[in-house]
Protein backbone atom coordinates (compact mmCIF):
# COMPACT_ATOMS: atom_id res chain seq x y z
CA UNK A 1 0.00 0.00 0.00
CA UNK A 2 1.31 3.44 -0.78
CA UNK A 3 -1.75 5.53 -0.14
CA UNK A 4 -3.55 6.31 3.11
CA UNK A 5 -6.92 4.64 3.55
CA UNK A 6 -8.39 7.90 4.92
CA UNK A 7 -8.86 11.41 3.50
CA UNK A 8 -8.64 13.10 6.92
CA UNK A 9 -6.61 12.39 10.03
CA UNK A 10 -9.34 12.66 12.65
CA UNK A 11 -8.06 10.08 15.08
CA UNK A 12 -5.93 6.96 15.32
CA UNK A 13 -9.07 4.84 15.66
CA UNK A 14 -9.86 5.50 11.98
CA UNK A 15 -6.43 4.29 10.79
CA UNK A 16 -5.23 0.85 9.79
CA UNK A 17 -1.88 -0.57 10.80
CA UNK A 18 -0.67 -0.20 7.19
CA UNK A 19 -1.50 3.51 7.33
CA UNK A 20 0.77 3.91 10.33
CA UNK A 21 3.58 2.01 8.63
CA UNK A 22 3.23 4.17 5.51
CA UNK A 23 3.34 7.34 7.62
CA UNK A 24 6.48 6.07 9.39
CA UNK A 25 8.23 5.10 6.16
CA UNK A 26 7.46 8.51 4.69
CA UNK A 27 8.57 10.21 7.92
CA UNK A 28 11.92 8.39 7.65
CA UNK A 29 12.52 10.21 4.37
CA UNK A 30 11.42 13.56 5.81
CA UNK A 31 13.67 13.09 8.80
CA UNK A 32 16.55 12.87 6.36
CA UNK A 33 15.26 16.02 4.61
CA UNK A 34 15.10 18.08 7.82
CA UNK A 35 18.69 17.20 8.63
CA UNK A 36 19.99 18.59 5.32
CA UNK A 37 21.61 22.01 5.01
CA UNK A 38 18.46 23.16 3.16
CA UNK A 39 15.51 21.64 4.97
CA UNK A 40 12.79 22.40 2.49
CA UNK A 41 11.19 20.46 -0.38
CA UNK A 42 8.85 21.98 -2.98
CA UNK A 43 6.16 19.25 -2.96
CA UNK A 44 3.23 21.31 -1.62
CA UNK A 45 3.83 24.55 -3.52
CA UNK A 46 0.21 24.66 -4.67
CA UNK A 47 -1.42 23.74 -1.36
CA UNK A 48 -2.74 26.22 1.20
CA UNK A 49 -3.14 25.07 4.78
CA UNK A 50 -5.04 26.87 7.53
CA UNK A 51 -4.03 26.24 11.12
CA UNK A 52 -7.16 26.80 13.18
CA UNK A 53 -6.36 26.82 16.86
CA UNK A 54 -9.48 27.31 18.93
CA UNK A 55 -7.45 26.42 21.99
CA UNK A 56 -3.99 27.56 23.05
CA UNK A 57 -1.02 25.61 21.83
CA UNK A 58 2.63 26.39 21.42
CA UNK A 59 4.57 23.32 20.43
CA UNK A 60 1.94 21.53 18.34
CA UNK A 61 1.22 24.71 16.41
CA UNK A 62 4.91 25.44 15.86
CA UNK A 63 5.56 21.86 14.82
CA UNK A 64 2.69 21.86 12.30
CA UNK A 65 3.66 25.25 10.95
CA UNK A 66 7.27 24.18 10.50
CA UNK A 67 6.19 20.93 8.81
CA UNK A 68 3.93 22.86 6.43
CA UNK A 69 6.60 25.40 5.59
CA UNK A 70 9.23 22.73 5.00
CA UNK A 71 6.87 21.19 2.45
CA UNK A 72 6.53 24.65 0.82
CA UNK A 73 2.80 24.96 1.52
CA UNK A 74 1.23 28.38 1.99
CA UNK A 75 0.17 28.74 5.61
CA UNK A 76 -2.42 30.90 7.32
CA UNK A 77 -2.89 30.95 11.05
CA UNK A 78 -5.95 31.58 13.10
CA UNK A 79 -6.32 31.87 16.83
CA UNK A 80 -9.78 31.82 18.36
CA UNK A 81 -8.81 34.37 20.97
CA UNK A 82 -8.53 37.08 18.28
CA UNK A 83 -11.43 35.98 16.11
CA UNK A 84 -15.11 36.29 15.33
CA UNK A 85 -15.77 33.12 17.31
CA UNK A 86 -15.86 35.48 20.26
CA UNK A 87 -18.58 37.41 18.43
CA UNK A 88 -20.79 34.33 18.17
CA UNK A 89 -19.91 32.90 14.77
CA UNK A 90 -20.42 29.12 14.39
CA UNK A 91 -17.58 26.72 13.65
CA UNK A 92 -18.90 25.85 10.20
CA UNK A 93 -19.34 29.51 9.26
CA UNK A 94 -15.82 30.34 10.45
CA UNK A 95 -14.34 27.45 8.50
CA UNK A 96 -16.40 28.05 5.37
CA UNK A 97 -15.25 31.66 5.34
CA UNK A 98 -11.67 30.48 5.48
CA UNK A 99 -12.30 27.85 2.80
CA UNK A 100 -13.71 30.56 0.50
CA UNK A 101 -10.18 31.89 0.46
CA UNK A 102 -9.24 28.63 -1.38
CA UNK A 103 -7.73 26.67 1.47
CA UNK A 104 -7.06 22.98 0.77
CA UNK A 105 -6.31 21.59 4.18
CA UNK A 106 -7.22 22.44 7.76
CA UNK A 107 -5.23 21.64 10.87
CA UNK A 108 -7.58 22.16 13.78
CA UNK A 109 -7.30 22.13 17.54
CA UNK A 110 -10.61 22.50 19.30
CA UNK A 111 -11.68 22.20 22.94
CA UNK A 112 -14.70 20.04 22.04
CA UNK A 113 -14.29 16.31 21.41
CA UNK A 114 -15.48 15.34 17.93
CA UNK A 115 -15.05 18.83 16.43
CA UNK A 116 -12.83 17.41 13.66
CA UNK A 117 -15.28 14.64 12.78
CA UNK A 118 -18.14 17.14 12.71
CA UNK A 119 -16.19 19.45 10.44
CA UNK A 120 -15.12 16.68 8.06
CA UNK A 121 -18.78 15.91 7.41
CA UNK A 122 -19.64 19.51 6.65
CA UNK A 123 -16.75 20.98 4.69
CA UNK A 124 -14.80 19.83 1.66
CA UNK A 125 -11.20 20.39 2.86
CA UNK A 126 -8.93 17.70 4.22
CA UNK A 127 -8.92 17.90 8.05
CA UNK A 128 -6.10 17.05 10.44
CA UNK A 129 -7.08 16.85 14.09
CA UNK A 130 -4.44 18.59 16.19
CA UNK A 131 -6.26 17.73 19.40
CA UNK A 132 -9.98 17.75 20.15
CA UNK A 133 -10.72 18.17 23.82
CA UNK A 134 -9.92 15.06 25.85
CA UNK A 135 -10.60 12.86 22.81
CA UNK A 136 -7.70 12.32 20.38
CA UNK A 137 -4.37 13.85 19.41
CA UNK A 138 -3.37 11.55 16.55
CA UNK A 139 -0.14 13.20 15.39
CA UNK A 140 1.21 13.15 18.95
CA UNK A 141 0.51 9.41 19.20
CA UNK A 142 2.13 8.83 15.82
CA UNK A 143 5.28 10.71 16.76
CA UNK A 144 5.39 8.88 20.11
CA UNK A 145 5.20 5.47 18.40
CA UNK A 146 7.69 6.63 15.79
CA UNK A 147 10.11 7.64 18.55
CA UNK A 148 9.71 4.25 20.28
CA UNK A 149 10.32 2.50 16.96
CA UNK A 150 13.41 4.64 16.41
CA UNK A 151 14.86 3.90 19.85
CA UNK A 152 13.85 0.24 20.27
CA UNK A 153 13.66 -0.90 16.63
CA UNK A 154 10.02 -1.89 16.77
CA UNK A 155 6.79 -1.15 18.61
CA UNK A 156 5.29 -4.65 18.39
CA UNK A 157 5.79 -6.70 21.53
CA UNK A 158 7.10 -3.79 23.61
CA UNK A 159 5.68 -3.03 27.05
CA UNK A 160 4.56 0.57 27.31
CA UNK A 161 3.11 2.23 30.39
CA UNK A 162 1.29 5.53 30.16
CA UNK A 163 1.56 7.32 33.50
CA UNK A 164 -0.51 10.13 34.91
CA UNK A 165 -3.70 11.90 34.03
CA UNK A 166 -5.38 9.40 31.71
CA UNK A 167 -8.82 10.88 32.32
CA UNK A 168 -8.18 14.27 30.76
CA UNK A 169 -5.62 13.15 28.22
CA UNK A 170 -6.20 12.98 24.48
CA UNK A 171 -2.56 11.93 24.19
CA UNK A 172 -3.28 8.83 26.28
CA UNK A 173 -6.28 7.75 24.23
CA UNK A 174 -4.57 8.20 20.87
CA UNK A 175 -1.47 6.48 22.18
CA UNK A 176 -3.46 3.50 23.42
CA UNK A 177 -5.09 3.11 19.98
CA UNK A 178 -1.77 3.52 18.14
CA UNK A 179 0.24 1.21 20.39
CA UNK A 180 -2.42 -1.52 20.42
CA UNK A 181 -2.73 -1.32 16.63
CA UNK A 182 1.00 -1.91 16.31
CA UNK A 183 1.01 -4.86 18.69
CA UNK A 184 2.46 -3.29 21.85
CA UNK A 185 1.36 -4.27 25.37
CA UNK A 186 -0.08 -1.25 27.13
CA UNK A 187 -0.68 -0.44 30.79
CA UNK A 188 -1.92 2.77 32.30
CA UNK A 189 -0.80 3.97 35.67
CA UNK A 190 -2.03 6.84 37.82
CA UNK A 191 -4.22 7.80 40.75
CA UNK A 192 -7.57 5.99 40.57
CA UNK A 193 -9.37 9.32 40.31
CA UNK A 194 -7.56 10.00 37.02
CA UNK A 195 -8.23 6.59 35.45
CA UNK A 196 -11.49 6.36 33.48
CA UNK A 197 -13.71 3.43 34.43
CA UNK A 198 -14.03 2.16 30.86
CA UNK A 199 -10.26 2.08 30.28
CA UNK A 200 -9.87 -1.71 30.49
CA UNK A 201 -12.39 -2.15 27.68
CA UNK A 202 -9.71 -0.66 25.38
CA UNK A 203 -7.51 -3.68 26.03
CA UNK A 204 -5.13 -2.05 28.49
CA UNK A 205 -4.24 -3.13 32.00
CA UNK A 206 -4.41 -0.84 35.00
CA UNK A 207 -1.65 -0.47 37.56
CA UNK A 208 -1.78 1.98 40.42
CA UNK A 209 1.72 1.24 41.75
CA UNK A 210 4.28 3.20 39.72
CA UNK A 211 7.21 1.05 40.77
CA UNK A 212 5.49 -2.16 39.61
CA UNK A 213 4.56 -0.48 36.34
CA UNK A 214 8.15 0.61 35.72
CA UNK A 215 9.49 -2.85 36.53
CA UNK A 216 7.18 -4.26 33.85
CA UNK A 217 7.72 -1.76 31.06
CA UNK A 218 10.27 -0.99 28.32
CA UNK A 219 8.91 2.52 27.84
CA UNK A 220 7.26 4.94 30.27
CA UNK A 221 5.24 7.71 28.67
CA UNK A 222 4.80 10.33 31.38
CA UNK A 223 1.79 12.58 30.87
CA UNK A 224 1.55 16.16 32.00
CA UNK A 225 -0.66 16.95 34.97
CA UNK A 226 -3.23 19.16 33.30
CA UNK A 227 -4.00 21.66 36.00
CA UNK A 228 -6.09 23.69 33.57
CA UNK A 229 -8.54 20.83 33.03
CA UNK A 230 -8.94 19.98 36.69
CA UNK A 231 -11.93 21.87 37.95
CA UNK A 232 -12.11 19.67 41.03
CA UNK A 233 -9.31 18.13 43.07
CA UNK A 234 -8.35 14.70 41.76
CA UNK A 235 -5.45 14.26 44.15
CA UNK A 236 -4.60 15.92 47.47
CA UNK A 237 -1.60 17.95 46.33
CA UNK A 238 0.94 18.25 43.55
CA UNK A 239 3.60 17.32 46.07
CA UNK A 240 1.81 14.06 46.92
CA UNK A 241 1.29 13.32 43.21
CA UNK A 242 5.00 13.85 42.58
CA UNK A 243 5.90 11.51 45.41
CA UNK A 244 3.63 8.73 44.20
CA UNK A 245 3.68 9.10 40.43
CA UNK A 246 6.74 11.20 39.68
CA UNK A 247 9.77 9.48 38.18
CA UNK A 248 13.08 10.31 39.85
CA UNK A 249 16.63 9.32 38.97
CA UNK A 250 16.83 7.28 42.19
CA UNK A 251 13.75 5.31 41.18
CA UNK A 252 15.11 4.70 37.66
CA UNK A 253 18.52 3.65 38.95
CA UNK A 254 16.93 1.16 41.34
CA UNK A 255 15.40 -0.78 38.43
CA UNK A 256 17.50 -3.63 37.07
CA UNK A 257 17.02 -2.43 33.46
CA UNK A 258 17.16 0.76 31.47
CA UNK A 259 13.73 1.97 30.41
CA UNK A 260 12.95 4.70 27.88
CA UNK A 261 11.33 7.86 29.25
CA UNK A 262 8.93 9.91 27.12
CA UNK A 263 6.88 13.02 27.76
CA UNK A 264 4.64 14.90 25.32
CA UNK A 265 5.56 18.22 26.93
CA UNK A 266 5.41 20.77 28.31
CA UNK A 267 6.99 19.19 31.40
CA UNK A 268 6.15 20.25 34.91
CA UNK A 269 9.70 19.68 36.11
CA UNK A 270 9.74 18.00 39.50
CA UNK A 271 6.13 16.82 39.18
CA UNK A 272 5.86 14.11 36.47
CA UNK A 273 9.62 13.72 36.16
CA UNK A 274 12.57 15.36 37.82
CA UNK A 275 15.02 17.49 35.88
CA UNK A 276 17.81 14.91 35.98
CA UNK A 277 15.44 12.32 34.45
CA UNK A 278 14.23 14.74 31.76
CA UNK A 279 17.81 15.50 30.75
CA UNK A 280 19.16 11.94 31.07
CA UNK A 281 20.18 9.72 28.18
CA UNK A 282 17.17 7.50 28.89
CA UNK A 283 14.88 10.37 28.01
CA UNK A 284 13.86 10.75 24.35
CA UNK A 285 11.82 13.91 24.90
CA UNK A 286 13.83 16.03 22.47
CA UNK A 287 13.81 13.23 19.87
CA UNK A 288 10.02 13.30 20.15
CA UNK A 289 10.03 16.99 19.29
CA UNK A 290 12.30 16.49 16.26
CA UNK A 291 10.31 13.47 15.09
CA UNK A 292 7.11 15.51 15.48
CA UNK A 293 8.07 17.68 12.52
CA UNK A 294 9.00 14.69 10.33
CA UNK A 295 5.84 12.75 11.21
CA UNK A 296 3.61 15.79 10.62
CA UNK A 297 5.33 16.39 7.27
CA UNK A 298 4.56 12.78 6.35
CA UNK A 299 0.89 13.07 7.38
CA UNK A 300 0.41 16.35 5.50
CA UNK A 301 2.24 15.05 2.42
CA UNK A 302 0.26 11.82 2.28
CA UNK A 303 -3.10 13.55 2.80
CA UNK A 304 -2.22 16.27 0.26
CA UNK A 305 -1.46 13.60 -2.34
CA UNK A 306 -5.12 12.58 -2.06
CA UNK A 307 -6.46 16.06 -2.78
CA UNK A 308 -7.40 15.85 -6.43
CA UNK A 309 -6.88 18.83 -8.66
Amino acid at each position, binding site marked *: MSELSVNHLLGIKYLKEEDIQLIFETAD*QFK*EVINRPIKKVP*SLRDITIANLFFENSTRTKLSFELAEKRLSADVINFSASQSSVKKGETLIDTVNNILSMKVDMIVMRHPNPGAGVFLSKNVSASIINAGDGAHEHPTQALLDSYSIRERLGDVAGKNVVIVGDILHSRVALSNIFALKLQGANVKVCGPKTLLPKYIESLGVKVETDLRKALEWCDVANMLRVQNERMDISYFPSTREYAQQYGVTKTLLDSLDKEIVIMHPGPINRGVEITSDVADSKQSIILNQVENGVAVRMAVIYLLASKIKQ
Partner: protein
Amino acid sequence: MSQKILLNSKEIGIILHRLACQLIEKHLDFSNTVLIGIQPRGIYLAERLTSILRDEYEVKNIELGYLDITFYRDDFRRSEKILEANKTNIDFVVENKKVVFIDDVLYTGRSIRAALTAIQSFGRPDEIELLVLIDRRFSRHLPIQPNYRGRQVDAINKEKVKVNWLENDGEDMIYLINQEKDN
Protein backbone atom coordinates in the same frame (compact mmCIF):
# COMPACT_ATOMS: atom_id res chain seq x y z
CA MET B 1 1.80 -6.07 -25.74
CA SER B 2 5.01 -7.03 -27.48
CA GLN B 3 8.64 -6.61 -26.57
CA LYS B 4 11.98 -6.78 -28.29
CA ILE B 5 15.47 -6.90 -26.88
CA LEU B 6 17.33 -3.62 -27.28
CA LEU B 7 20.55 -4.68 -25.59
CA ASN B 8 21.66 -8.01 -24.20
CA SER B 9 23.96 -8.70 -21.30
CA LYS B 10 27.15 -8.69 -23.40
CA GLU B 11 26.28 -5.43 -25.10
CA ILE B 12 25.43 -3.82 -21.76
CA GLY B 13 28.82 -4.93 -20.43
CA ILE B 14 30.66 -3.31 -23.35
CA ILE B 15 28.69 -0.09 -22.95
CA LEU B 16 29.35 0.06 -19.20
CA HIS B 17 33.10 -0.23 -19.81
CA ARG B 18 32.96 2.49 -22.46
CA LEU B 19 31.03 4.80 -20.11
CA ALA B 20 33.55 4.11 -17.33
CA CYS B 21 36.41 5.03 -19.69
CA GLN B 22 34.66 8.23 -20.74
CA LEU B 23 34.26 9.18 -17.08
CA ILE B 24 37.96 8.57 -16.42
CA GLU B 25 38.96 10.71 -19.43
CA LYS B 26 37.06 13.64 -18.00
CA HIS B 27 37.43 13.14 -14.25
CA LEU B 28 40.87 11.44 -13.99
CA ASP B 29 41.29 10.21 -10.38
CA PHE B 30 37.82 11.41 -9.25
CA SER B 31 39.40 13.46 -6.45
CA ASN B 32 37.02 16.33 -7.11
CA THR B 33 34.11 14.33 -8.54
CA VAL B 34 31.16 12.57 -6.92
CA LEU B 35 28.72 10.14 -8.52
CA ILE B 36 25.03 10.37 -7.69
CA GLY B 37 22.62 7.58 -8.65
CA ILE B 38 19.07 8.80 -9.15
CA GLN B 39 16.52 6.72 -7.20
CA PRO B 40 15.03 4.27 -7.76
CA ARG B 41 16.49 2.74 -10.95
CA GLY B 42 19.62 4.80 -11.49
CA ILE B 43 21.35 3.33 -8.46
CA TYR B 44 22.00 -0.04 -10.14
CA LEU B 45 23.80 1.64 -13.05
CA ALA B 46 25.70 3.88 -10.61
CA GLU B 47 26.81 0.87 -8.53
CA ARG B 48 27.91 -1.06 -11.64
CA LEU B 49 29.95 1.83 -12.96
CA THR B 50 31.51 2.42 -9.56
CA SER B 51 32.60 -1.20 -9.24
CA ILE B 52 34.05 -1.20 -12.78
CA LEU B 53 35.97 1.98 -12.02
CA ARG B 54 37.22 0.55 -8.72
CA ASP B 55 37.98 -3.02 -9.69
CA GLU B 56 39.03 -2.81 -13.31
CA TYR B 57 40.47 0.68 -13.64
CA GLU B 58 41.74 0.91 -10.07
CA VAL B 59 40.28 4.29 -9.37
CA LYS B 60 40.36 4.66 -5.61
CA ASN B 61 38.14 6.73 -3.35
CA ILE B 62 35.12 7.10 -5.58
CA GLU B 63 32.28 8.73 -3.71
CA LEU B 64 28.85 7.38 -4.63
CA GLY B 65 25.55 8.69 -3.28
CA TYR B 66 21.87 8.07 -3.93
CA LEU B 67 19.41 10.88 -4.50
CA ASP B 68 15.66 10.51 -4.14
CA ILE B 69 13.72 13.09 -6.12
CA THR B 70 10.16 12.19 -5.07
CA PHE B 71 9.56 15.39 -3.09
CA TYR B 72 10.89 17.56 -5.93
CA ARG B 73 8.79 16.16 -8.76
CA ASP B 74 6.40 18.45 -10.60
CA ASP B 75 3.71 15.78 -11.03
CA PHE B 76 2.75 15.47 -7.35
CA ARG B 77 -1.09 15.27 -7.31
CA ARG B 78 -1.13 15.31 -11.12
CA SER B 79 -0.05 11.79 -11.83
CA GLU B 80 -2.34 8.77 -11.52
CA LYS B 81 0.65 6.80 -10.30
CA ILE B 82 1.24 7.08 -6.55
CA LEU B 83 4.64 8.50 -5.80
CA GLU B 84 6.66 6.43 -3.38
CA ALA B 85 9.65 7.93 -1.65
CA ASN B 86 13.03 6.20 -1.69
CA LYS B 87 16.06 6.69 0.45
CA THR B 88 18.49 9.52 -0.11
CA ASN B 89 22.00 8.73 1.03
CA ILE B 90 24.61 11.38 0.41
CA ASP B 91 27.17 11.36 3.20
CA PHE B 92 29.71 13.64 1.52
CA VAL B 93 29.86 17.28 0.57
CA VAL B 94 28.78 18.31 -2.93
CA GLU B 95 29.75 21.96 -2.48
CA ASN B 96 32.26 22.94 -5.18
CA LYS B 97 32.41 19.35 -6.46
CA LYS B 98 31.82 18.02 -9.96
CA VAL B 99 28.65 15.98 -9.70
CA VAL B 100 27.73 13.25 -12.18
CA PHE B 101 24.05 12.27 -12.13
CA ILE B 102 23.51 8.67 -13.19
CA ASP B 103 20.16 7.33 -14.37
CA ASP B 104 19.08 4.37 -16.48
CA VAL B 105 16.72 6.04 -18.97
CA LEU B 106 16.45 9.70 -19.99
CA TYR B 107 12.93 10.23 -21.24
CA THR B 108 11.02 13.50 -20.66
CA GLY B 109 13.81 15.08 -18.61
CA ARG B 110 11.50 15.84 -15.68
CA SER B 111 13.31 13.50 -13.27
CA ILE B 112 16.59 15.22 -14.02
CA ARG B 113 14.93 18.62 -13.60
CA ALA B 114 13.79 17.46 -10.16
CA ALA B 115 17.26 16.10 -9.38
CA LEU B 116 18.83 19.45 -10.30
CA THR B 117 16.57 21.13 -7.72
CA ALA B 118 17.06 18.39 -5.12
CA ILE B 119 20.86 18.49 -5.22
CA GLN B 120 20.78 22.19 -4.31
CA SER B 121 19.60 21.12 -0.84
CA PHE B 122 23.02 19.59 -0.29
CA GLY B 123 25.11 22.52 -1.49
CA ARG B 124 26.20 24.22 -4.70
CA PRO B 125 28.15 21.92 -6.98
CA ASP B 126 30.76 23.39 -9.31
CA GLU B 127 29.37 21.52 -12.28
CA ILE B 128 26.72 18.89 -12.91
CA GLU B 129 26.90 16.27 -15.67
CA LEU B 130 24.43 13.62 -16.70
CA LEU B 131 25.18 10.01 -17.60
CA VAL B 132 22.40 7.75 -18.89
CA LEU B 133 22.33 4.24 -20.27
CA ILE B 134 19.42 4.89 -22.65
CA ASP B 135 18.64 8.26 -24.18
CA ARG B 136 15.14 8.41 -25.70
CA ARG B 137 15.95 11.43 -27.74
CA PHE B 138 12.59 12.38 -29.28
CA SER B 139 10.47 12.55 -26.15
CA ARG B 140 11.98 15.38 -24.15
CA HIS B 141 9.69 17.89 -22.43
CA LEU B 142 12.58 20.01 -21.17
CA PRO B 143 15.88 21.17 -22.67
CA ILE B 144 18.00 18.52 -20.92
CA GLN B 145 20.64 16.41 -22.68
CA PRO B 146 23.08 13.82 -21.37
CA ASN B 147 26.85 14.30 -21.34
CA TYR B 148 27.41 10.54 -21.56
CA ARG B 149 24.97 8.12 -23.16
CA GLY B 150 25.07 4.36 -23.54
CA ARG B 151 22.66 4.03 -26.46
CA GLN B 152 20.37 6.45 -28.20
CA VAL B 153 16.90 5.07 -28.85
CA ASP B 154 14.16 6.44 -31.06
CA ALA B 155 11.03 5.19 -29.32
CA ILE B 156 7.51 6.47 -29.71
CA ASN B 157 5.50 7.50 -26.67
CA LYS B 158 3.43 4.33 -26.35
CA GLU B 159 6.63 2.34 -26.15
CA LYS B 160 8.47 1.78 -22.90
CA VAL B 161 12.14 1.10 -22.34
CA LYS B 162 12.67 -1.36 -19.48
CA VAL B 163 16.14 -1.85 -18.05
CA ASN B 164 16.59 -5.07 -16.09
CA TRP B 165 19.58 -5.52 -13.78
CA LEU B 166 21.01 -8.81 -12.61
CA GLU B 167 20.93 -7.77 -8.94
CA ASN B 168 17.30 -6.72 -9.02
CA ASP B 169 15.60 -8.48 -11.92
CA GLY B 170 17.76 -11.57 -12.36
CA GLU B 171 19.21 -10.59 -15.77
CA ASP B 172 21.07 -7.80 -17.51
CA MET B 173 18.75 -6.95 -20.37
CA ILE B 174 17.09 -3.92 -21.94
CA TYR B 175 13.72 -4.31 -23.61
CA LEU B 176 11.63 -2.05 -25.80
CA ILE B 177 8.05 -2.81 -24.85
CA ASN B 178 5.13 -1.84 -27.03
CA GLN B 179 2.29 -1.24 -24.56
CA GLU B 180 -0.48 -1.36 -27.17
CA LYS B 181 -2.44 -4.58 -27.30
CA ASP B 182 -1.70 -6.83 -30.28
CA ASN B 183 -4.60 -7.38 -32.62
